[in-house]
């Protein structure tokens, strides 16, 4: 049995754990987005991935533009505070990317089901919306006690869960804090996991709203300072809003995007 997370370079972790055709989630809700790990997937030319993410933002625009994705499972695809994701939008409008679309609540519950070892989760949601007409992973379920009609969404079947955290210790215990979204569920719900961290430290200490993922549930830890830029890492650096705005320009134009990709 695995007792400690292995600490390796990011390139090795991606090469060893991510296979073409895998279902891969990179999570982080505005905060701690694993951008460096996403760009390593691009560099290693991973193909036919089913990419999962509640809020595909610029790193998913990059992955989609670079041709890594066959399918996207998501709930909100935009450049937050700026506008559209042009590579994502172009791919969808051209019919080049299969999509499976949910609401945030639906996606969050799908992660919860995965982390819980359940095949589905129950929620109130989607009633009266157009989503169930287009998304087959939304079904009705009846409460066996009250007869009430509710909604079921299936667990995500994640091969690899990738997140960015502030710190890990040398045994691979991972700590993140602040707004931590669905990152715990992403690691616990996936068969294999990669956590990039700002730094590896001798000992973790207490932090407010801290999530600790113990060494034995994490597959790889990779030290990648700045690995969440241009998103932010509380306690390390702020969100680079200028870079988010600049991405609009780059992704809008296919030639500019190709030049960006070439230079990556």
């Amino acid at each position, binding site marked *: 049995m695995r007792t400690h997370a292995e600490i390796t370079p990011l390139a090795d972790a991606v090469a060893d754990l991510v296979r073409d055709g895998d279902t891969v989630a990179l999570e982080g809700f*505005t905060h701690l987005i694993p951008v460096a790990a996403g760009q390593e997937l691009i560099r290693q030319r991973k193909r036919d991935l089913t990419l999962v993410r509640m809020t595909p933002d610029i790193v998913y625009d990059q992955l989609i533009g670079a041709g890594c994705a066959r399918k996207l499972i998501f709930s909100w695809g935009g450049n937050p505070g700026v506008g559209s994701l042009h590579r994502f939008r172009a791919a969808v409008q051209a019919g080049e990317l299969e999509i499976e679309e949910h609401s945030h609540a639906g996606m969050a519950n799908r992660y919860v089901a995965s982390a819980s070892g359940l095949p589905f989760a129950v929620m109130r949601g989607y009633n*009266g919306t157009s989503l169930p007409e287009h998304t087959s992973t939304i079904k009705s379920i009846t409460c066996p006690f009250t007869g009430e009609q509710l909604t079921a969404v299936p667990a995500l079947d994640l091969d690899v869960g990738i997140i960015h955290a502030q710190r890990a210790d040398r045994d691979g215990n991972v700590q993140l804090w602040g707004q931590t979204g669905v990152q715990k569920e992403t690691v616990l719900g996936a068969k294999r996991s990669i956590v990039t961290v700002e730094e590896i430290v001798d000992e973790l200490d207490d932090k407010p709203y801290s999530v600790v993922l113990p060494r034995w549930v994490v597959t790889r830890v990779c030290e990648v300072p700045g690995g969440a830029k241009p998103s932010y890492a509380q306690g390390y650096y702020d969100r680079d809003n200028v870079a988010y705005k600049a991405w609009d320009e780059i992704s809008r134009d296919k030639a500019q995007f190709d030049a960006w990709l070439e230079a990556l």
Partner: protein
Amino acid sequence: MTAYEADEMMTVEAARRLRDTTACFVGIGLPSTGANLARRTHNPDLVLVYEAGAIGAKPPSLPLSIGDGMLGETADTIASVPEIFNYWVQPGRIEIGFLGAAQLDRYANINTTVVGDYANPKVRLPGAGGAPEIAASCGEVVIIVRQSPRAFVEQVDFITSVGHGDGAGARERLGLRGKGPTKVITDLGILEPDPETRELTLTHLHPGVTAEQAREATGWDLKLADDLQTTEPPTEEELKALRELLAA
């Protein structure tokens, strides 16, 4: 009296609607501006809840995104995203959901997903995010949106978030527990669902706007309330607070 822009009138009016509210679920953009203005003017105790996890955020300036660091750092508490939706939104614990819209129909159904056909979209929009469950489960919903024939359409291309469905009784039939949209605040005036039919009806015009302008900015045959009123213009204090907020 200080001159003001239509957007300022809209935002000030939105803030006023939070005067007696305990907790408000805040979307990014116009809703966030309105809610933050309310906290600085009419309701300093207003609890702002953001979908990335901040409950009781007190941001010193307007956040650019829904999960900005300042939201978590100033919050009374932080929840995980599953907890936000399951423990806070779903049970109807939050009185008002503040939403925007790309398209809106006469029953206040919201589209933020796609213009045109879903499979062959003319314009692909960001999608649902947290809005469907906010619209379903918050005590009531206030929509803030600029009024135009492109946005105010006879029928939305996609129902991302349910307003009043196909009219009277629809929410009850769908099992939606919140009251749904009770106000749509635009740059021209205020629309409210007719108590009987649930169709959006113009109840207020902002100062200087005519009913004809509002009707022209609407893609359906907009009904006017019998007692159509004029919104109170922004006070000096409201404008000052709003401008400080936007400049911070």
